[in-house]
């Protein structure tokens, strides 16, 4: 089932809520894991995963990327560099990162925990289309300014701001645009009435995951001057930032929780 925007929004709020709570409920390995599943190992042996990958018959899936098909009854290959043994004979909880996808999923960097491990029996499946807690925390740290704001104008920057009129061209030219954002609430950093967010207007595949902005959009923005090569030319009186990843543009409602979280840290 495709992940709806509602599920994305809820997963973001869940990430923020867990982050606010100190993320005690989720271990770093699990928050970073692509897949968490429960099942039984086919043909358990004393060998480690580094010596011989093993196969898990999935009985339930706790977490997976939304685009990956994985359900009860599927087989999943487990490989790993660590001295992780494939010897458990009962149900196990497995975490890992996606290594390959074919007729079945193969996980790497696998950790296998024999059950019983405290499991919420009604724990909902988490499909990871929104940011992980680790990613959200990292982006929050990197942000120079975090605001809730509304885009009031989208414009083309001046030639000077864009680096000059006569430049070499490629299909990866960003075709810069600027979103002028009215700040509704400042979560982190110095208050401003408006800020400018420069973003690539290009549809080139290189910018597939870089957020674009439209007039009227209200979002929580994690703004920085990250990964900027050379000066980010600003018009007098304007502060220009970038929001280069999907995690840098969040639903507007997240702002208040981020503010509480930052106030608690």
């Amino acid at each position, binding site marked *: *089932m*495709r992940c709806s925007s509602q599920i994305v929004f809820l997963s973001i709020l869940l990430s923020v809520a867990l982050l606010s709570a100190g993320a005690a409920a989720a271990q770093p390995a699990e928050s970073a894991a*692509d897949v968490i599943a429960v099942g039984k190992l086919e043909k358990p042996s004393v060998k480690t995963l*580094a*010596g*011989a*990958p093993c*196969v898990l018959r999935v009985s339930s899936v706790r977490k997976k*990327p*939304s*685009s*990956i*098909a*994985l*359900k009860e009854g599927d*087989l999943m*290959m487990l*490989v*790993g*560099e660590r001295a992780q043994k494939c010897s458990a004979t009962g149900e196990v909880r497995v975490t890992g990162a*996606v*290594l*390959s*996808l*074919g*007729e*079945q999923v193969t996980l*790497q960097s696998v950790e296998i925990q024999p059950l019983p491990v405290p499991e919420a029996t009604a724990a909902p499946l988490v499909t*990871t289309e929104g*940011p*992980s807690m680790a*990613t959200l925390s990292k982006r929050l740290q990197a942000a120079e300014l975090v605001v809730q704001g509304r885009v009031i104008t989208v414009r083309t920057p001046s030639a000077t701001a864009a*680096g000059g009129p*006569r430049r*070499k*061209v*490629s*299909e*990866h*030219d*960003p*075709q810069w645009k600027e979103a002028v954002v009215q700040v509704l609430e400042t979560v982190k950093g110095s208050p401003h009435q408006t800020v400018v967010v*420069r973003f*690539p207007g290009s*549809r*080139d*595949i*290189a910018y*597939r*995951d*870089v957020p674009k902005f439209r007039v009227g959009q209200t979002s929580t923005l994690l703004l920085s*001057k*990250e*990964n*900027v*090569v*050379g000066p980010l030319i600003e018009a007098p009186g304007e502060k220009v930032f*970038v929001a280069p*990843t999907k*995690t840098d543009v969040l639903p507007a409602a997240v702002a208040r929780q981020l503010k509480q979280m930052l106030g608690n840290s």
Partner: protein
Amino acid sequence: MKGVIWRPHILGSLIGAGAIVGIVLVAAEPTKIRVHTPPAAGVVVVDMIPKTLSSETNQDSEPFLAVLPSDPSFMVASAFTPNPAGSSRPTAPIFRSKDGGKTWDLITVVPSEGSTADITEGFSGPARQLHAGILSLPMSSNGPTNYAHLVEDDINVLSPMVIRMPRPDADQPYVATRPDVHPGIVYVGVNDLSVVDGKTATVDVSLDGGMTYAVHRIEVRATDLQDGPSIRPAVSNDGKVYAAFLGWRHFDRRTGIVKADVVVVRDDNQARTSPAFQSLKDTDQKAGKRVAANVTIPWVNDAALGQERIGSTLSLAVDPGDGKKLYIAWGDRVGNGDIYTIHVRVSNDAGETWSADRKTMKNSTAPALAVAKNGVAGLLYQRLETIGGRQKWVTILEQSHDGFLSSSSITLASVAADLPQPNLPYNGDYECLIAVDGEFRGVFSANNKPESGAFPQGVIYQRRTSATSLLDDSGTPVAPSIDPFFFSVPVATN
């Protein structure tokens, strides 16, 4: 699981040195591969998206293919396919087949965040040593691309590829290899936009199996700030290496119209000496034969030919049995009401002289040339046609034994062109064709919707489908998108 055939499957070491070979059992279920129409004799077309990604709706455009010469059943392919685990993951995926293209899986081994921009690859040197040229992500927030060479000694090991010689501000790396020598030789055509004098067409050459690269500028004539993005090396078995590029002589930035020369350079000694690529001179005594001069190329980085962008299409191939026989194809605007026309020309004397157009294909793009051992040339391309009142992208493979004085053709795909997609390129700035023993093998990207007549030669889906729809794991219909398709077609006999 009923109907499952268990086969031993060898995986290489997962801890690097001190190889320990593990044997695991992999379920192989040929009965679950869905064939929508029976394939024409010998022709195979496979949607490369694996079953475990049945719900994906990504725009997997711009595919490329590499075939392992020592074991042609082993292949690697790339497309703009993102890491299914998310855009923040440190690696991007490529496709792998171990059975001659019948089935494909996705392996996350390319060091680039979530996906790549441009990527091409080739095998060279020791068994399964894979080389790639990529533009890695993320792009800098306000500036140049991140270009790098990658190498992996054994791609079956599934560890991230090693980065060599990263540098900024380059475009469209295009890999060609000389796999039959050791250490392997790798040529990467790249448009190096960091060059100050405007002579940006470049071939990076590695003579040591991808450990180091020498940078060779191949444009010697004046340009209007730069050359076009596409630089296409082609390697002969007799020590010659060629490269084609579009020399931009004038670029009207207001209209997007370029006046360019279609240029071929040659090096008779594998580009082992510097300056390289000086073996073929034109009447002005400068290196590089102008196959066509002052052609008009519309540079449109937006929907221009249907939903596809245009302006850089170029392909070059050399006959493996005759290192002097060359085929070239490029796109320009003729001005006869066309948007974009592909031209095909032939040289029988190592590029010294060229035929007039042997073929022109109106409103077509992404030509890919290859020549089989028996001298039959293959030409893959995509044409925008109106069929039954509806615009369609038609993917065609032509074969010719006489240098395209005549040719036979088959249609591999005829799919709706009105499917909205968010990104560019729509299908791809290029696709790929390779001659392997008695087959032409290649990859193209197209609208993946199962529709009557969409794949006249038949198609094999790995992902879940019904007769009329893609399906996710629960049987719910999935919206169509652009998928990469592999194909193999028997080489015509002379």
